[in-house]
């Protein structure tokens, strides 16, 4: 199966977009790719699962990108980073992602789990809360993710 087929299999028809096309306009400005040819496609996980899993702490997006012949899945959450409340929210989403990926065909790809701040950030990469989040598998990149 291809990344596209896995997205459709997992999230449904009409959820796969070319490049970074699945990202909402407000979020798209927070993500860039220096080599767009490497981008395989993207999906809005949050929107696709809103109906079947309305009360879950859903992660925002998945972006497929081929680097060095390996297809990686970048799991991207664009979320405020202004308080400890936001850290707790991202932790809940991360736990959800980990559980949701279990046995899921999108879970087969090497993962890069990223939190991108959507507004002003009160954290930097030395913050203990950010280190704690990294120890759970999620890296915080500030306001911009360069793939």
């Amino acid at each position: 199966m291809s990344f596209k087929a896995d997205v459709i299999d997992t999230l449904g028809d009409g959820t796969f977009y070319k490049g970074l096309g699945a990202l909402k306009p407000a979020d798209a400005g927070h993500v860039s790719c220096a080599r767009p040819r490497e981008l395989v496609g993207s999906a809005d996980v949050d929107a696709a699962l809103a109906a079947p899993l309305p009360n879950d702490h859903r992660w925002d997006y998945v972006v497929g990108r081929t680097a060095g012949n390996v297809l990686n899945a970048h799991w991207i959450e664009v979320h405020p980073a202004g308080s400890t409340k936001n850290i707790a929210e991202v932790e809940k989403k991360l736990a959800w992602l980990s559980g949701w990926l279990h046995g899921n065909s999108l879970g087969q790809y090497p993962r890069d789990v990223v939190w991108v701040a959507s507004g002003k950030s009160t954290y930097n990469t030395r913050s203990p809360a950010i280190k704690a989040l990294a120890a759970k598998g999620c890296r915080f990149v500030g306001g911009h993710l360069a793939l």
Partner: protein
Amino acid sequence: MKKLTLRNIGQINEASLTFGDLTVLVGPQASGKSVSLQWVKLLQDSGLVQQQLHTYGLDYDGKLPEFLDVYFGEGMHSIWRDASEVVVDGKVVDVKKRIARQQVGKGESVFLIPAQRVMALANGWPRPFTDYKSGDPYAVRAFSENLRLLMEREFNGSGPLFPQPNRLKADYRKLLQASVFADFKLSVDKVQSQKRLVLGVGEESLPFMVWSAGQREFVPLLLGLYWLMPPGKVSRRNNIEWVVIEELEMGLHPRAISVVLLIVLELLTRGYKVILSTHSPQILELVWALETLRKNNGKPQDLLALFNAPKSASLKEMAGKALEKSSKVYYFDPASKVVDVTNLDPMSPVTQEASWGGLLEFSARANETVAKAVANSADFASGDLFKEPA
């Protein structure tokens, strides 16, 4: 001096520095930070520098290249080129002319604590100006000489130099005791007739060479702080307006750095303008917190919490004044112009600002490495990582 611009000097393409009450310079090695700080000293204290060089027999014949070798150190004449330019508060300084003639010697207005400060106590006692080689930088000699004068004039009596009741606030002494000196006391003893600084605990006296690296680095800094904060009700030393400290973090544990930074705030509240050069993100953390507290009506106790310092009335008063002070941070980019990164905004599209002049780069990469390893682990894939312990 409110603004200094240096162009085409040594490694510096262009450094345009508008000083805050606290100004911090960051950047890789050999990017021009130290040279810039020495220019601040030279421009403010030209007459005094010339007088001292003359007094101690260092002759440069009124010529700029020879002067630069004497002032900045051997071989440093090469930092000045035809296109070099120094501008202070919008006015170009005729450096050659200034060096050619003896300027009026006023009192010292810039106190520079150099990165090589440990050399000042190389034999356990401050070395005089003339004890150095002719190619050694002026900044080291002058600092060393000031420490010698301090010891000669103000520490003739008995009793320890640290802790000493009339030097530094009791809160600072306690914090320094805990973070730097432990049970040791800094005092003067004599071997035959030669005085020397020792760290004593009980009956034992440890000479300079057996101190910890941090203690060797810290004691010259402490003596420099004594010089800047005279005993009694005098808040500042003579005509000194500027305090320049190169790499105050050298050899110190982050807890000790924290105490020194608290004392830097004390210097600010005494009316000194302070310039620091650093490779420590901890110093930028202070500026980040200071500026954020200032913009958001932070309280003195918030600032003291940053240092885990006691909330005594005297420290609260100091912290309240420190919150009124302005800060500036500049990144010395070896490939380009010096960049103002004062906002230290992790969201900034300017890479040098978001990475705090490169000081956060390694931390970001460590996070990435750890996060990717964990995200691809069996525990993450199985969901076990997030299961509540039974």
